[in-house]
């Protein structure tokens, strides 16, 4: 075991943990003020729910001994066998518990991302039940397929360094299913749903950027050159994406906006995630610059198609992650990571096809499973708050609280 690697992974785990409250702020500022606490809660409480789920059965399902390439077994239920010594299979230079803790933070933030799609109208009880089912039936299998030892997508050669498919595409496409099934907010199209606290949103974006260094660089699972590469390309992609987004806005709407800068930065972080350990700085520039085009168009398309993905989870995480996963198939280089593969621009067009397959599998699996889970939850508890509760706001109706008492 290596003390440098261990320190780095524990620290990276803490960085990724901070992304969840950061996401809470990012989303919270974009909601209306009567829903601030409800929105914050949907992210924040993931720290509670998913941690327990992960410890009890999630880690075992996702990373435990493989069964048919589909799922891990229950051998590690309650973290049995997950000790202070290194895992035989994952991250040989750090304690197994450190690896588990790092992965736990990813499992926590992924369902929190989905909450942006149904902001301001989902019952809290339904949300808790949905989250538990989604984590168990969507996240755990997907994590196993891509990152678990023996997982079939990983074995197929799909490259996903830090979670483009597992975290962003899965949450983004699940968000699409949720937006379609739960339906639009009352007043959508007629009322102006203006973000109530953009300073909060920008603060959240800053915290997300900071935490993402743990998300991507930590995925090297060692304190080494590859981690440094991941750190650097993450930073570059976010920077270019923020600039690219406000440039598009400036040309399209006449003014650059702070929400645009924050959204662009996050889109860039999403896009670089799958390739952060496989692509170099110049590729990161291009990936970042182009993700804003993809996501901005996706958001405009949302208005035309008329579904209410309130905080643009589909537009930013779904589409941004898809672009990032495919871009990895273009720009991946063995020079950066000998354990990876070359992409199309480095002489291996097959990788792009592999990436496309992984993306397609994720799209289909996430969409179908999420739809089923939502229907079940709707039958058991009912997904949506009543019209009156939606009018009064989630803070009062779901939590008996007021966010701001000036």
């Amino acid at each position, binding site marked *: 075991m290596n003390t440098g690697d261990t320190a780095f992974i524990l620290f990276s785990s803490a960085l990724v943990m901070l992304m969840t409250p950061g996401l809470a702020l990012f989303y919270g500022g974009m909601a209306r003020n009567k829903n601030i606490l409800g929105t914050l809660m949907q992210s924040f409480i993931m720290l509670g729910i998913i941690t327990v789920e992960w410890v009890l059965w999630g880690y075992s399902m996702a990373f435990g001994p493989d069964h048919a390439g589909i799922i891990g077994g229950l051998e590690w239920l309650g973290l049995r066998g997950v000790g202070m010594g290194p895992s035989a299979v994952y991250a040989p230079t750090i304690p197994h518990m450190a690896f588990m803790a790092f992965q736990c933070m990813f499992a926590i933030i992924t369902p929190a991302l989905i909450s942006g799609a149904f902001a301001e109208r989902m019952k809290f009880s339904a949300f808790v039940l949905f989250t538990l089912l989604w984590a168990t039936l969507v996240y755990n299998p997907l994590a196993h397929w891509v990152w678990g030892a023996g997982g079939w997508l990983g074995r197929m050669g799909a490259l996903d360094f830090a979670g483009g498919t597992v975290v962003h595409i899965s949450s983004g496409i699940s968000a699409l299913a949720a937006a379609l099934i739960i339906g639009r907010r009352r007043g959508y199209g007629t009322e*102006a749903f*203006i*973000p109530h606290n953009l300073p909060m949103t920008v603060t959240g974006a800053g915290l997300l950027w900071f935490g993402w260094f743990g998300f991507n660089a930590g995925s090297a699972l060692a304190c080494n050159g590859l981690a440094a590469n991941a750190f650097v390309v993450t930073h570059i992609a976010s920077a270019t994406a923020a600039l690219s987004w406000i440039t598009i806005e400036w040309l399209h*709407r006449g003014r650059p*906006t702070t*929400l645009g800068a924050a959204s662009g930065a996050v889109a860039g972080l999403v896009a670089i995630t799958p390739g952060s350990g496989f692509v170099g700085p110049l590729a990161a520039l291009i990936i970042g610059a182009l993700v804003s085009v993809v996501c901005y168009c996706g958001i405009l398309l949302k*208005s035309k198609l008329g579904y209410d993905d309130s905080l643009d989870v589909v537009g930013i995480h779904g589409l941004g992650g898809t672009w990032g996963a495919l871009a990895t198939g273009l720009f991946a280089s063995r020079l950066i990571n000998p354990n990876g593969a070359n992409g199309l621009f480095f002489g291996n067009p097959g990788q792009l096809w592999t990436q496309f397959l992984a993306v397609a599998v994720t799209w289909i699996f996430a969409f179908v499973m999420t739809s089923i889970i939502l229907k079940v939850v709707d039958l058991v508890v009912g997904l949506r708050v009543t019209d009156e509760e939606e009018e009064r706001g989630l803070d009062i109706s779901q939590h008996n609280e007021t966010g701001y008492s000036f």
Partner: protein
Amino acid sequence: MKKIEAIIKPDKLDEVKDGLAHLGIKGMTVTEVKGFGRQRGHKEVYRGAEYQVDFIPKVKIEVVLDSELVPQAIGLIQEKARTGQIGDGKIFVMSVETVVRIRTGEMGKGAI
């Protein structure tokens, strides 16, 4: 006794308040309001979606005063609050039936 309600641009509040003080009017109630008359609102854009915001922030000053002071007060408010642009605001004057000082129970002009 009369009550003046004046809707003015927010950044004119201090000047109006100081001006009224010079007339001997020391008390007033001020509220932050939103409204529009002929002044157009503005456009806001969030993630590519345009919103027309019609209501413009204003300040409402309410002052109860002796009827004799009303013309001077109106003239002063107009002088201090005016910019010459659309959106300067309006002044309304209405009658007041009763005024009571809560602490002492005084009524009428002396209670103003």
